[in-house]
Structure formats: structure tokens, C-alpha cells
């Protein structure tokens, strides 16, 4: 069965710069995460899928038709672009109404769909405010609302959670999951692994314009786990943490930060390390923790052979 989005040996270049290189991939129903560091080609991939760019070579099909030059399929697809794309002087309500009119609905239906879409993204209270006065998160949500309002089968979301607060992030993640469960094809691009992980386990990894890997996000985790994993912790007594974990054979190295409150640990088995950390967290006064390896750049550092 063919997918809603199909790339067949598709390439796109801008002058001498290759943004997407010989990509063959099929995206079917459900949520698919398009993961890649900045500049990997994610936006070009989405713009090709949305018919906003013509492939320089190869073929890109959306819902069985060439994505480029088939505007009639856009009533079945919704695009949430990464950059702001609206008229600042319109209210959120007017913005959605104007776009629904372009999709071919009558006034009454435009109104009903606009309200439903704004409700979904929790913008009903701010619907009559000018989009120009919206916060970054609200702008992001109104962009998402316009992509959803005409009930499309395919949703292309470019960094949809960017700038959102945790509450709305949760709400949008749930919404995306619901849409996918209803049978829609949702392609979400992001450069943050845990954002995508919250929505789906199916990912496409893209780097330097090429699809690097495709499959379950846990496989990436497994790959990551085969490599040293770095965790930095800030605590009242970082040396107590160091003493507690130094005997574990999965701990490969320990180093203290200049300020004395930071401890950086390299571990071969992060799950075991987090278990050990949990036991000592309270007595050592654990204040902050982050894993630089969560950054997708590090994942690609592991995955890309050099």
C-alpha cells in the first residue's frame, strides 16, 4: 500500500547547495517524526511534501498526486510552517476565517470550523485579539489551528512545539496523537528528540539532506546506549554523588566543574546510572540535571560514520 507522502529518489538543490539528496521514503498513517539537527533538510523535506517547492530531481507525491503543481490536493492537506505566516493586522478569528474561505467553505461553515479549530488549540479567549499582539506560543498555536481547520487527511507540522509553554506543549502533543489515532497522516519535524518521542515512536532521521535511518525511536535509544552517555548534575554535595557511583562498572569517567557544584559523568548504561542517582539524590541535594547527549547533534555524532 502506498503512503500518503512518497518521495522517490527526490533531490532538491539551491544553486550549488544540495538541501535534499536522493531521498526515497514513504510516510503512512499515524505520526512520523522527522528528526534532524538544524540545517539537515527537514524544512525542505516538508516544503517538498507540501508542494511549496518543486523537486530538482525525482518525484514527490502527496495523496497519490505530484505534490508540486496539484493545488487541488491542498484541501486534503494542512501545513503548519516553521516561520510566522500571517497578516498581523487580522485577529486570530479573522485569519482563520479568511483561510477557510480560500478552501471553499461558506460563511456559516467557516465560522463553525474556525471556532472548533481555535478551541482545539485553546485560543478561543484570544480569538478577537490581533495576531500581531500574540505571544510566540500563541502564534504557533494559531498556525496549527489554520492547518487543522479544514479537517485535512495529511498534516505537515514544521517544529510545531517551538516556543510553547509546557501546558500547551502537552495539549498539542495530545492533539497530534488524537489526530493520528483517527487515521490521519501526521509528519512532524523537530530537532529535539524528546519532543518527537512524546508524540510517536516512528521516526525518520535526516542529516545533510539524506535520510539516515528510519524506524522506532527506541532503536536510536539503543544505539545511543551502546556509546558513552554524558550526564551533568548540579548538587549541594556533588562529591557524595561521585562517591556513590564511582564503584559502578558502567561509570567510565567523572569530572568536577570549575564552580565545584557540577559533576559530569560518562556512563555506558544510563538507565543504571539514573537508578543509582535516584538513591543518592535527596541526601546529596540534587538541584539540576541535564544530559547533553539528549541533544540530537550528539545522536548524529554517534550515528554518522566519519
Amino acid at each position, binding site marked *: 500500500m502506498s503512503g500518503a507522502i512518497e518521495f522517490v529518489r527526490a533531490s532538491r538543490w539551491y544553486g550549488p547547495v544540495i538541501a535534499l539528496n536522493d531521498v526515497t521514503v514513504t510516510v503512512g498513517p499515524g505520526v512520523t517524526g522527522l528528526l534532524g539537527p538544524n540545517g539537515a533538510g527537514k524544512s525542505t523535506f516538508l516544503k517538498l511534501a507540501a508542494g511549496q517547492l518543486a523537486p530538482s530531481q525525482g518525484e514527490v507525491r502527496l495523496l497519490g498526486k505530484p505534490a508540486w503543481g496539484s493545488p487541488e490536493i491542498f484541501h*486534503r492537506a494542512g501545513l503548519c510552517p516553521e*516561520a510566522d*505566516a500571517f497578516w498581523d493586522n487580522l485577529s486570530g478569528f479573522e485569519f482563520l476565517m479568511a483561510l477557510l*474561505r*480560500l478552501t*471553499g467553505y461558506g460563511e456559516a461553515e467557516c465560522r463553525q470550523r474556525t471556532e472548533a479549530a481555535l478551541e482545539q488549540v485553546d485560543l478561543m479567549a484570544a480569538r478577537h485579539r490581533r495576531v500581531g499582539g500574540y505571544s510566540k506560543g500563541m502564534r504557533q498555536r494559531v498556525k496549527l489551528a489554520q492547518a487543522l481547520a479544514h479537517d485535512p487527511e495529511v498534516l505537515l507540522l514544521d517544529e510545531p512545539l517551538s516556543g510553547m509553554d509546557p501546558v500547551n506543549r502537552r495539549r498539542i502533543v495530545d492533539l497530534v496523537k488524537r489526530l493520528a*489515532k483517527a*487515521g490521519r497522516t501526521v509528519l512532524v519535524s523537530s530537532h529535539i528528540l524528546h519532543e518527537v518521542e512524546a508524540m510517536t*515512536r516512528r521516526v525518520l532521521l535526516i542529516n545533510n539532506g539524506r535520510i539516515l535511518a528510519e524506524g522506532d525511536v527506541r532503536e536510536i535509544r539503543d544505539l545511543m546506549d551502546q556509546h558513552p552517555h554524558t550526564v551533568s548534575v548540579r548538587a549541594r554535595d556533588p562529591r557524595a554523588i561521585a562517591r556513590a557511583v564511582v564503584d559502578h562498572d558502567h561509570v567510565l569517567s567523572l569530572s568536577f566543574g570549575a564552580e565545584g557544584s557540577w559533576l559530569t559523568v560518562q556512563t555506558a548504561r544510563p538507565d543504571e546510572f539514573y537508578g543509582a542517582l535516584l538513591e543518592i539524590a535527596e541526601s546529596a541535594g540534587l538541584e539540576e540535571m541535564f544530559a547533553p547527549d539528549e541533544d540530537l547533534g550528539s545522536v548524529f555524532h554517534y550515528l554518522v560514520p566519519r
Partner: protein
Amino acid sequence: MPIYDQGYRRYEARGPLRTLRFWPITREALRLVLSRRAFLGLLAVGWLPFVVRVIQIYIVTRFPEAGRVLPVDGRLFGEYLNTQIGLALFLTIFGGAGLIANDLRTGAILVYLSRPLTRRDYVLGKLSVLLALNASVTLVPALLLYGIGLALAPEQYMTWSLWWIGPAIVLHATLICVSISLLSLAVSSLTKSARIAGLGFFGLFVGLEMARGVLRNIFDVRGATLLSIQADLRGIGSALFGVTPSRFDLVDWPAAALVLLLVAAGCLLLLRSRVRAVEIVR
């Protein structure tokens, strides 16, 4: 692993509009333009010459001897439309300079073109805004004026010798509207700033008119009149309505028509290359 339902389900999304797909774009833009009081004021000023011409027709119908000084034949309509070119220019700057430039600045062109619209629909939608605005100070008042002439002096206008005035008004006004609108839209697509687009359009019109004036009046270069789009439009209008142009406005109308045709073709080519959802920087 999540198992997604692969079965058929009926989506409620509509098919695209089959006809007039550009109309929602025109409607929205007209609504925004007409909500500006300054613009409505300008539109009102654009109708003042109409009032003057109505008074002229009325006076001549009451005092026929005045017709020797103020003729109400085809020349009245030619002169009227030639006067309106300047007003159409200002109306276009205020109403149309940002039509594409603002969409490029805000990125809204991407959401337009992610709807069931072609680039042609988009351009047609924007062009219709300018055509409507320009027609409101050229075609509409000129036809109304003709109607008033017919009503006030039917014996004069309903003769075979003046039957051509109606079609000539439509032809000349259409030429003015299309030329000005296309040029304005093409200039608007060149920048992301409505202000720069407006200044650029004004500069193009006025600059070329000044260049024509200098070359024709000082250096007596005859072909220089063709340089100015306003002069070309005036020249064609004068030829159509039998208006005697001044020596410096004298222009060969077929050559003027060819210039306008080339300008229109250039504008369409420019719009074709500039109206894109994604800006490609090389």
C-alpha cells in the same frame, strides 16, 4: 508498537472552489483597504472631477451656446479619463503597494499557496483588487457620466455619430486599469516593504514622466513621449476620443499601445518569477 486504523473514513474536507477561486483573496483585501478612512477620503477626491463634468453637461444642456467653449462630445470623456490617470495612480499607491509586498514580509504567501489555489489564482485575486479600485475612479464614473449625458441630452448622445463613446470608454478605462494595476502589482512583488513598493511605483510613473518632459521639451526628442506610461495612456485616449493633444504630448498611438503591451508582458513575467511560497536565496 501502535496499530493505526488503516480503514476508510470519510473526511469532511471540501473540494476546492471550481470557479472564482481568487475571489476570497480579492474580497479580503478590498475589505481591509476600504476600512481605512484616509483611503475612502482619497476615493471621494477621485470623484470630484466627475461632479465637475456633470455640471458641465448640465450647463451645456441648459445653455447650448456654452457647448462651443465646453464641448460635451467624445472629447469630454477623453479629457475626463486622461485626468483620472493621475488619481488612479494615487489610489493604486495607497491601496495596492502592499498587496504582495506585505504577504512576502509576513510570509502569508506560504499559507495562501498551501490552500487549493494556484499562483495564477493568487495573482488574479490581487490584480482584481487593483482593477476594482481603478475602475471605481475611471470606468464606473465615466460610464455614469455617459449615462447622465444620455439622460440629460438624449437628442445629442443617441445619435449614430456618438454611438462609439460607450465602447471607447470601456476600452480606454480598461487599458488604464490594467496597465496601472499590473505595473503596481509587479513593483509590489519586488520588495517586502509596502512603503518601498509605493515609492518605487510612484518614482517609476513620475520619473518616466519627468524624463519624457526633459527629453521632449528641452532636447526635442520625439520618441521620448513613449517613455512615459502616463503619456502613452493619454496618447491612446486622445486618439480614441478625438482630443487634440499638446505638441509635447503627441504620440503615435500604435507605438504607445505596443509599449504598454510590452510593459504588461514584462510585469506578468516578473510576477511569475516572484510569486512563490518559498523564497529561494542563491
